[in-house]
């Protein structure tokens, strides 16, 4: 476990709800409520969940855009919230991000060269010619050519803009890239190209990815490990194959049945009704029991324990305690 590049321990992020003139705190939005996982070097970990499940908040905590309420984020066994000075800069350099909408995440008043060279200028001392050379090589790496250097974001297509964003992310030779819904804003045909590019870059530059998405089809395509998250808590985690072959948590199954599949027989689909409960006042016991078709009494009262189905496949669900224990008994 010491080989983990990034290790998150019991991360919590509560947003206070303030009212009135003096900002009296009347409650907290529990966006992330005790999440632990790790990302190993060279691994692609996917964080999957519906809107409001807290996956983007985790990313924002990792990028130090939000300060976690409690818990630790360890990078190279150092807590990133405590980093200062040179070490902080080092961390920023080695963890980069690609955001959902490239048009919003690129400065509209900078051209491609300026966008990509901005972080480079900040940390490497290069002459203008060398910088130009380096930026062009990065563009080539993401499948664009030199003619894009003096284009502005509004002159690019969605896919091109996202490639520029990726070029900027790899410009500092990072170890981990946080991909926050990198393909959600793109066309389906372009999505595939971007995913292929990400897969190629991973091999070429030995990167790790933390992929945050709600799109299960891209998860299946690219990730090594999957973490299913619901209302700020982990529901199920395991290797990609295990989870796709044998989803254990009812929520995971329902998620998978929401993937469009032309060969599925009618009636096999479980449709999840209702909306996720409010994270201000999450339901007691298992977070999912209000919508779970298989909920039993204990789900409403106690938080489910961690159940290991294999070395890395873990599920947090009462239904499997009995199954598990009965299996081990026999």
């Amino acid at each position, binding site marked *: 476990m010491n080989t983990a590049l990034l290790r998150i321990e019991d991360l919590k992020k509560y947003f206070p709800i303030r009212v009135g003139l003096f900002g009296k705190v009347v409650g907290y939005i529990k966006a992330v409520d005790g999440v632990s996982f790790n990302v190993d070097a060279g691994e692609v970990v996917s964080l999957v969940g519906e809107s409001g499940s807290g996956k983007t908040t985790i990313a924002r905590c990792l*990028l*130090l*855009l939000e300060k976690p309420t409690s818990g630790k984020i360890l990078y190279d066994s150092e807590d990133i919230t405590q980093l200062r000075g040179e070490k902080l*800069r080092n961390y*920023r*350099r080695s963890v*980069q*991000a690609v*955001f*959902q*909408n490239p048009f*919003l*995440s*690129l*400065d*509209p*008043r*900078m*051209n491609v*060269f*300026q966008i990509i060279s*901005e*972080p480079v200028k*900040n*940390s490497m001392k290069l002459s*203008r010619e060398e910088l*130009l050379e380096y930026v062009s090589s990065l563009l080539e790496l993401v499948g664009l050519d*030199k*003619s894009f*250097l*003096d284009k502005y974001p509004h002159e690019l297509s969605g896919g091109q803009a996202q490639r520029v*964003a990726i070029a*900027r992310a790899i410009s*500092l030779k990072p170890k981990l890239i946080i991909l926050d819904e990198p393909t959600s804003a793109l066309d389906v045909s372009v999505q595939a190209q971007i995913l292929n590019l990400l897969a190629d870059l991973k091999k070429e530059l030995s990167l790790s990815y933390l992929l945050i998405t709600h799109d299960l089809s891209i998860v299946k395509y690219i990730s090594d490990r999957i973490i299913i998250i619901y209302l700020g808590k982990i529901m199920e985690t395991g290797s990609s194959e295990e989870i796709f072959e044998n989803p254990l948590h009812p929520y995971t199954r329902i998620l998978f049945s929401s993937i469009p599949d032309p060969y599925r027989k009618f009636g096999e689909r479980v449709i999840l009704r209702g909306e996720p409960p409010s994270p201000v006042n999450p339901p007691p016991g298992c977070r999912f029991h209000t919508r779970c078709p298989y909920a039993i009494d204990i789900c409403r009262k106690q938080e489910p324990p961690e159940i290991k189905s294999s070395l890395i496949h873990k599920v947090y669900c009462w239904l499997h305690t009995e199954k598990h224990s009965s299996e081990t008994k026999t």
Partner: protein
Amino acid sequence: MKNEKIKKNFLLKSGYLQFPIKKIILTQMNSRIFAGLIIISIITIMAITAPFITWHPPLKTLVGKPFTIPNNHYLFGTDDLGRDIYSNVIYGIRTSLIVGLSSVSIAVIIGTLIGVLAGYYRGIIEDFLMRITDMTLILPQFLLALVIVAIFGQNFQNIILAIGVVSWPGIARMVRAEFLSIKERPFIEAAKAIGLSDMKIIFSEILPNAMPAVIPYIILQINAAILIEAGLGFLGIADPNVPSLGLMLNTAQQYLMNAWWMAVFPGLMLSIIVIGLNLLGDGLVEYLNPRLRKR
């Protein structure tokens, strides 16, 4: 070969701060901006070439007989002390523009600094700076400038300083408002995530995006500064050693019945400057705010 060309072209083209001025001039420019630009350019040229287009030194008394009616030699006539009004008006434009530009530069520096600090760092800094801004905003600009000049003495620098010191709050508020909205845009978060320093983010990411909204306001502020200077002059608070349109109007009012030209020409010139700047400023506001743009 082709790459070399692209590279050269690119090196030529890439500037760091890209305000949309170039775009405005080249593409759709509304008639107000156009009219404003023409008026302002003519006036600026007149102010710059003042020594070449006048043939009497300004402020020099008795270059002609007092109260000469405008004629071929004294285009705008002469005043009570026999000074050439034409030269004084032309040099007066110069004064107006210098006062407008330099006092607004002071205001822009103070205002941007305060707006940037308040808008970027929020919290207590913001509360403190914005309350100061509000307090300054409450005081009437003109009277405040009057008091400052009255206390520190009537010379040219003091007038510029006084006008600069009273006109920053509006700029500070606008810069802050722009910062508040731009700061939350995803590309700023992206820049933070990349690890750019605060200074870099403020000056190379947010400020270039904030300026287009502030520039028209600054131009209107130049206008206001010119009017304050003229107003102070009209009340007799001006440096007597510098030709000033306001001061000329002040002297003219005593002889309004007998020498109309003493009031008409400086007044006209002042109006033209103000109208020109107003057209330019309003046109820019309209151009940059698509909601006001008529289709």
